């Protein structure tokens, strides 16, 4: 078994193969120099701690104990599907029976001239180290893109005392996948922490002289910063698969079992698009940590012949300041919204389809205030339940009781 990409998904897949008792060779190839590690802390606690740290998914000892061979700092450069061999960037090669592509995604590049060494992206631990070096008190940071990674980084930069400006081209932050009511709460939280949030602002030009970045906005306003971090989304890593002749459709296209059209090659995590059963097979690509984990484990089971279809409900969280947002399901499937207020200003929006089916739930609040109800909502979504809107809206009705119904 060969796994390409030693991230969340690849790491979990390797461990799952062993959990299931597979005894043949398992090789995990990754081009980063580190152990497989979790990315979510990079914009959060790993960024604000004294020195950024790696939260490894598996230690060297665990990998050795489970007989997982981890080849780091090398890229897979080609897949020979006929010979069942992958070639590595040092000229060596590996034979496989089953292959998993867990190549993840990379930040979308800002297609503009003028970017230099002070314009950076955040994806890897090494990126985090480079950014951290500029986040001291008094430094100015511009964040291009009001998405999750940019906003989390804005919160972390404020915690370290930097002056932060967020520039978003859309009319509001978090346009994609987050209801306006919740984006509003997050927007206000940033303003309360003295972050300058500029929405509806296109960028006319960028000048980076290596010491300072000067960003000119469409309306002529200028933002000058010691560092500009670009967070305008991610694109799946598909070149290797495409060159091997596999179908690409907003990611490496797989079926509900995470199989490509080659029966011996699977793809999972941020790099793949797959049909989501709970929404009638709608093809999606998710960039979410739990999905990477679940799909890594599912791919491993199917590589061993389980023949199991993906059935999970998408789930995502984000932490900014003391607030946590959690979203289960895809809110754009909903036609109407029911609001449920919880203690401490926390609330959940339930997204209902035309026929009353619960299709998503988005919640925000301090700490883990929404966690339990979002989890119950997720189970209701999985059951394709049609709970009464009045019950969803009333804090007095326990969601657990709806699940039993």
């Amino acid at each position: 078994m060969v796994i390409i990409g030693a991230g969340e998904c690849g790491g979990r897949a390797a461990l799952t193969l062993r959990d299931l008792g597979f005894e043949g060779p398992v090789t995990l190839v990754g081009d980063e120099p580190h152990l497989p590690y979790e990315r979510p802390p990079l914009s959060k606690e790993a960024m604000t701690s004294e020195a950024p740290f790696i939260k490894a998914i598996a230690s060297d000892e665990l990998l050795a104990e489970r007989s997982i061979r981890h080849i780091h700092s090398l890229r897979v450069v080609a897949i020979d599907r006929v010979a069942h061999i992958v070639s590595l960037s040092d000229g060596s090669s590996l034979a496989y029976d089953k292959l998993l592509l867990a190549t993840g995604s990379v930040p979308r590049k800002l297609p503009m001239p003028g970017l230099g060494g002070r314009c950076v992206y955040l994806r890897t631990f090494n990126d985090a180290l480079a950014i951290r070096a500029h986040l001291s008190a008094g430094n100015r940071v511009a964040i291009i893109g009001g998405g999750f990674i940019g906003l989390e980084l804005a919160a972390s930069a404020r915690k370290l005392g930097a002056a932060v400006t967020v520039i978003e081209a859309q009319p509001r932050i978090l346009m994609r996948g987050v209801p306006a009511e919740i984006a509003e709460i997050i927007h206000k939280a940033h303003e309360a922490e003295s972050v300058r949030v500029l929405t509806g602002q296109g960028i006319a030009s960028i000048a980076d002289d290596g010491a300072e970045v000067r960003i000119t906005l469409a309306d002529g306003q200028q933002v000058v910063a010691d560092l500009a971090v670009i967070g305008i989304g991610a694109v799946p890593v598909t070149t290797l698969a495409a060159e091997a002749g596999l179908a690409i459709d907003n990611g490496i296209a797989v079926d509900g079992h995470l199989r490509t059209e080659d029966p011996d090659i699977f793809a999972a995590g941020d790099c793949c698009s797959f049909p989501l059963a709970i929404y009638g097979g709608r093809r999606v690509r998710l960039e979410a940590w739990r999905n990477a984990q679940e799909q890594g484990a599912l791919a491993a089971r199917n590589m061993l012949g389980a023949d199991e279809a993906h059935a999970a409900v998408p789930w995502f969280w984000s932490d900014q300041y003391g607030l946590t947002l959690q979203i289960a399901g895809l809110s754009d499937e909903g036609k109407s919204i029911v609001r449920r207020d919880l203690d401490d200003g926390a609330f959940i929006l339930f997204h209902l389809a035309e026929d009353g089916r619960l299709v998503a739930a988005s919640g925000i609040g301090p700490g883990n205030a929404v966690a339990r109800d979002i989890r119950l909502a997720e189970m209701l979504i999985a059951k394709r339940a049609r709970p009464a809107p009045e019950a969803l809206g009333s804090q007095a009705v326990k969601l657990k009781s709806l699940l039993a119904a």
Partner: protein
Amino acid sequence: MSDWVEACAAEDIDEEDVMRFDHAGRTYAIYRSPDDEYFATDGLCSHEKVHLADGLVMDDIIECPKHNGRFNYKTGDARGAPVCVNLKTYPVKVDAGKVLIQLG
């Protein structure tokens, strides 16, 4: 063995639910199972030190509110990613409507 400490009244916890209990600078989670038995574990998740009492109890599983790591609260066993370190458990008894837990 150390003494039994009174944590709460038995009726303070719903069936199939969990409550936080802080004592002597430490935090614990006390569970009431669907079949009306009581259990106790360390209060913080072994993944990122989050209070498990904000999580969801289902049968004999407590699910962490932060990233859905799962533990069997009766045995403390970690049940799947991202958690891999087990929780410490503590003996519990109910006496005259009070839940007592044996710490130490």
